[in-house]
């Protein structure tokens, strides 16, 4: 088990910055996700850790030792690629043995460790197959096995589920998380899918434009995002421009149309413009004339266990998600009930 520290990593390609000072520390056996849209620098960060990219500035520490100038093959990492990058000319067993052969492990030990790992990723019957003859999910497990069999200091995963269909993706999510816990390896996982990041990680790092926007537990990121962009990226979010009073006293007083007022916690850092975030499932529907806000249903989408409503209000169109038994017709006037404990002030984006 290894601790990984990134100290103000900077990477630029001929002047154009791809990473602008990434600092992060990942504890023993933690599962950390780098989450962000394409081009945010999450893959570049991973490639820097792996040694495929040379950092322009900053340092990468494994257990306090600076490895940022080491060649990739000297870093003791296991990596799973988006395309899996299985060696097509080698069998599953040979793919797994490759890393051990590079480490000059004795033959007998190689056979034993490969067998053990095949068992771990549930591929023992497929040892002599070539990758081409395996399904996507099986190939994925070979890639995992190949990365783990060498017992690396850390495990790096680059969008490993992107090429799988939805059902298999859900299955593999659980599989990878269980495996990681069992092996107890420090893991860094790159994804653009907030669902994957939320469900699997101990720590989620949201990145935009080459910088970390927020790092925290999945709950922190979801419930108390620091900015509007983070709030919107990790789930659906209504951002309300509510008149706020007394900022700076630890709490904020919000005045609602119709005179009602709510008190919510104030943000740690003062922002130029504040918006109030309310997640769709944190707004309840009630009868017309009741609740904090009034509105009219403009769209209803049945989602199985839930219903997605779009409600036109004085604050624009709000998304509301209710249990499937809460029924309102399109066109119907309704009241909206906000939960002050779940409202959260976020810094609005400059452009918004």
């Amino acid at each position, binding site marked *: 088990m290894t601790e990984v520290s990134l100290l103000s990593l900077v990477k630029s390609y001929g002047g154009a910055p791809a990473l602008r000072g990434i600092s992060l520390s990942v504890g023993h056996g933690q599962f950390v996700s780098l989450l962000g849209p394409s081009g945010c620098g999450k893959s570049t960060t991973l490639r820097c850790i792996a040694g495929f990219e040379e950092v322009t500035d900053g340092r990468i520490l494994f257990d306090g030792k600076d490895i940022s100038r080491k060649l990739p093959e000297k870093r003791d990492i296991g990596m799973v690629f988006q395309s899996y990058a299985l060696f097509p000319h080698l069998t599953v067993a040979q793919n797994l043995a490759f890393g051990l052969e*590079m480490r000059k492990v004795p033959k007998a030990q190689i056979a034993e460790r490969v067998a053990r790992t095949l068992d771990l990723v549930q591929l023992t019957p497929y040892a002599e197959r070539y990758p081409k003859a395996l399904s996507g999910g099986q190939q994925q497990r070979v890639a995992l096995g190949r990365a783990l069999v060498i017992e690396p200091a850390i495990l790096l995963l680059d969008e490993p589920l992107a090429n799988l269909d939805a059902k298999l993706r859900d299955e593999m999510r659980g599989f990878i998380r269980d495996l990681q816990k069992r092996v107890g390896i420090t893991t860094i996982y790159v994804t653009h899918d907030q669902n994957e990041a939320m469900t699997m990680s101990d720590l989620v790092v949201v990145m935009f434009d080459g910088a970390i926007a927020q790092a925290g537990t999945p709950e922190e990121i979801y419930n108390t995002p620091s900015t509007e962009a983070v709030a919107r990226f990790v789930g659906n979010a209504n951002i309300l421009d509510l008149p706020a009073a007394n900022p700076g006293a630890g709490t904020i007083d919000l005045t609602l149309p119709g005179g009602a007022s709510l008190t919510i916690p104030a943000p740690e850092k003062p922002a130029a413009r504040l918006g109030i975030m309310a997640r769709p499932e944190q707004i309840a529907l009630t009868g017309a004339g009741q609740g904090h806000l009034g509105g009219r249903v403009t769209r209803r989408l049945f989602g199985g266990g839930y219903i997605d409503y779009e409600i036109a209000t004085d604050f624009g169109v709000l998304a509301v998600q209710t249990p499937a038994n809460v029924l309102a017709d399109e066109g119907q006037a309704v009241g909206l009930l906000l939960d002050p404990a779940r409202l959260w002030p976020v810094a609005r984006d400059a452009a918004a």
Partner: protein
Amino acid sequence: MRLAEALLALFRVLVYIFLLAPIAVVVLASFNAGNFLTFPPQGLSLRWFVTFLQNDVFIDAIVYSAVLAALATAVSLVIGTMAALYYVRHAGKEAETVRVLLLLPLILPEILTAIALLFFFYQIGVGLEHRIALFTGHVLMTLPFVFLNVTTSLQGRDEACELAARSLGASRMTAFRRVTLPLIAPGLATGGVFAFIISFDTFGISFILKGTGSAPLPIQLYDYLRFNFTPEAAAVSTVSIIFTLAAVVVADRLFGRKG
């Protein structure tokens, strides 16, 4: 519309025949029993193959050409594969320049390249000694074919495989040897076959740079055909065509279907 399509189909068949005719006619002529190149052949016979096998000049020329082609191909394979690796994996902005440079010998007129080389080697005082000029010319002629084929096969391969090997502890060299090389083997084989055939058949470079003494097969054949019209030349050509086809088929069987 039906008639137009039928005419088009007929036209296509004629073009395919046009492509094969001069080659087919040489092969047929080689089995001619008569003393001269007549058509249709005056009976079938292998006598001209026997004559050819007893003719040291042609046997020497074939051996000479084969050795020259093998050496030129070997050198081209090494240099061309390295260049292709650089072009596909490492060249940044200068990629297009690299490509044009490597294809120059193919784009420039062969006969002019040969003459330019002749002048050049005379001016640096080497001349046509030791067949250095001839060999250089053959490497130049074959290089673009290796480069093109290896480039194509590298581009079809995921770089992630090489990176995966590195992450598993393989040095750059080991990753190339254990992963990249087996994956691009078909491209290398095709490039090598092309290079061999080009070198075996090329005329302009050999014609200008051959120097004195023994000469490659195309030159020997050319000299022979200027004064003789017996079907022996056809027999030599047929053997040469069979050599070429065999090279293609062997390479295809060995590497064509894999990966």
